[in-house]
């Protein structure tokens, strides 16, 4: 167990360094990006004096390292902001205040995160069931007509953009058939049933495309396992094809499915922009795109750090699961 504890500690240390580097990169990138941030924040009709005031209030004239230092201070010790009339305290971990709205970034994230999480977790269940199921089926029926049809469908799935699938789903299900109302996001804590109904189509459109990836991966690694010597052993001992597939070939594919799932999950938390936009889900991806457009640096940094945190976390979890799935892997 000592090895396991060491592994967790090393992973945490690695994650902290990764996130630290990430935040520095974002600061530098935004610093060198052309465009007057104060002007954009203040609005097109501001006078030069007003723009100057905004720049001072947001400390935009300070050198890069000073601004970054303030950011770090806020993160570890909390920070006080003046809103012009009063002083607002932002407790640690403070990611700063939105240039645009003055809201604290941590607040924004806390309201957006549950939405993104709801979307990705639900979709994950669907893409795993559908993707792995299709993969197993096409590995089992390899070379036959049904397998070719499945392969064609998954290929089409990989190649279809999410907004096409999402739009088609919406038009057919909500428009033509009128099975569901056009989705309007409801919080899980408000009404779990409505929450599920409102997310059904987003889940499907995000999951269908990812499922295609999982189907292809599952099929490929199962076929690879099926070509291995130990499969021959069990066939030579009279173990039926179904048992060979279900027990031995699928087992060989679990490790790669776990790895892909971690990456997909981590990146979908912040990267499902298209799905969120299409269905009007107020999630992290949508907010991030907006923040980038208006150069709202604190929001961007906060969002990217949270997304980065999930990617790192998902990968660490995958490594642990990987070692559980394959005892030969040593966590180091």
């Amino acid at each position, binding site marked *: 167990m000592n090895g396991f504890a060491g592994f967790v500690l090393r992973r945490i240390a690695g994650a902290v360094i990764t996130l630290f580097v990430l935040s520095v990169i974002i600061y530098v990138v935004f610093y060198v990006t052309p465009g007057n941030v104060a002007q954009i924040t203040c609005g097109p009709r501001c006078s030069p004096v007003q723009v100057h005031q905004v720049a001072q209030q947001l400390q935009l004239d300070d050198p890069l390292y000073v601004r970054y230092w303030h950011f770090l201070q806020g993160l570890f010790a909390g920070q006080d902001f003046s809103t012009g009339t009063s002083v607002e305290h932002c407790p640690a971990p403070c990611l700063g205040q939105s240039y645009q709205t003055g809201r604290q970034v941590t607040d924004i994230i806390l309201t957006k995160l549950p939405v993104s999480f709801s979307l990705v977790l639900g979709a994950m269940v669907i893409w795993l069931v559908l993707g792995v199921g299709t993969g197993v089926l096409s590995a089992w029926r390899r070379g036959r007509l049904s397998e070719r049809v499945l392969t064609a469908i998954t290929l089409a799935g990989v190649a279809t953009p999410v907004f096409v699938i999402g739009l088609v789903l919406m038009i057919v299900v909500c428009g033509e058939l009128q099975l569901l109302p056009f989705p309007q996001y409801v919080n899980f804590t408000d009404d779990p049933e409505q929450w599920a109904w409102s997310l059904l189509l987003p889940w499907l459109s995000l999951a269908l495309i990812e499922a295609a990836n999982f189907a292809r991966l599952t099929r490929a690694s199962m076929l690879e396992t099926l070509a291995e*010597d130990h499969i021959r052993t069990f*066939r*030579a001992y*009279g*173990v039926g094809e179904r*048992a060979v597939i279900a027990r031995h070939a699928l*087992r060989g594919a679990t490790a790669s499915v776990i790895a892909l799932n971690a990456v997909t999950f981590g990146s979908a938390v912040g990267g499902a922009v298209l799905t969120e936009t299409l269905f009007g889900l107020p999630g992290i991806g949508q907010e991030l795109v907006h923040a980038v457009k208006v150069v709202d640096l604190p929001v961007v940094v906060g969002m990217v750090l949270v997304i980065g945190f999930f990617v790192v976390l998902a990968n660490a979890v995958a490594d642990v699961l990987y070692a559980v*799935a394959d005892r030969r892997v040593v966590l180091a």
Partner: protein
Amino acid sequence: MSLVEVTDLTVEFGALRAVDGLSFSLAEGAALALVGESGSGKSTVAGALLGLHRGTGARVGGSVRVAGTDVQAASDEELRMLRGARAAMVFQDPLSSLDPYYAIGDQIAEVHRVHTRVSRRAARARAVEVLERVGIPDAQRRSRSRPHEFSGGMRQRALIAMALACEPDLLIADEPTTALDVTVQAQILDLLHALRAETGMGLLLVTHDVGVAAESADDILVMRHGRAVERGPVGAVLAAPAEAYTRELLDAVPRVGARRTGSPATDEVVLEATGVRREFGRGKRAFPAVDDVSVTVRRGETLGVVGESGSGKTTLGRMLVGLLEPTAGEIRYAGRPHTGVNPAVQMVFQDPVSSLNPRRSVGESIADPLRARGERDEERIRGRVTELLERVGLDRAHYDRYPHEFSGGQRQRIGIARALAAEPRAIVCDEPVSALDVTTQAQVVALLGELQRELGLALVFIAHDLAVVRQVSDQVAVMRRGRLVEYGPADEVYDSPREPYTRQLLAAVPALDPELAARRRAARRTPVAAQRPAPEERTRVA
């Protein structure tokens, strides 16, 4: 009725006819060895007995009857009932032949449950029982281990246990000992022998090693190009082969008793290792792969290094070439300390497939050392490479071909040509012939000897095969667990070994004479309980 009845069997893979009209039969409880070089079709025959070619696209003709089942006509279900229950197969590579994800006991239990209607628990108990029978110590606990936690010999025992689980009438063993060290090989062959005596099952042994056949079978069938060349009782065929090919095959088999002929050894020391030690790992996990080894190689002389896997012979070889730095001690080349790689000391690797870049022509691979030396003139490079190709018995037209177009023996010749390109004074050959058939092996060994005489090369010949080493060496170093056990002139080491370990190694080499093999087996049984693995094979002794 005989256990196996094969009549006019033909197996075709596309245009290739792997088995061509083979017929043989095996009586109940008898043991037959199918012997042949790679590509002779022997493993294909073994697979055909269990109908393993079904659904692979191979065309199978003729008739195969095993334990009363017509394999060709049987339904998939009937075939499943035959496989494992009546006829069980033991495969060559025991690591890849077991599922890495499941405990060994569970895998055996799974197979057992396919053929018997017993509970999970009873199947598991049966698994422990057979593991115990094949000599796995502490079988109850070890049955929960996964294959990678077993040593090579124990894995092979586990596979044999799987075969025993359903008490089959026929055991088909496809190269069961090829991946194992000699002492472990002897234990496995003894185990097969004991099991046959105990259960009365028949044995079909597929092997490229005539010695293994002599140890374990009653009858032998020599195969070549998918056909039977010669068959008969093992003793009779080996003592007086009737066919030219059988004679050729037997002549090519290196004998442990054969002395090396003629070598003009000199006093000029080319390579010298003094007290070298090499550790792998750091801190508490550090272990010495080579520990306090001193050897000397003179001009025109061959030093043979023998030992079982993990004995440190490859590590020693890499240090001699300069690919690894010793942790302690010193390597000297021509009297001077030798650090880093030196063009004068070259290496020939074991696996001629993976040690050549598959995407470059062999001419380019051979030219590498020339270019590394700074040669830029394309004309001269091509000329020199052509000369080298011809020197190792290949054609000048082979320059632009790619490695996959060559046979194993030819690839090893390419490896030798590449080593010669830098005009070395010493070559370290790491298992240069162990991937080759005996006849090819003999040719490559002859080529090395020729080159040595011609160029006065100092050779280091690393191998696990004691007979090959004897054939080529002037001096022999026997290694075990990183240490030098015995070191001296080849004839002394082989004819009058001082150390018990050397004697044990030599006694484990399969004899080409079945009677001698039987006597040796009896001798092995007396000192130690025959079915127990050697101490180093156990990971934990209770």
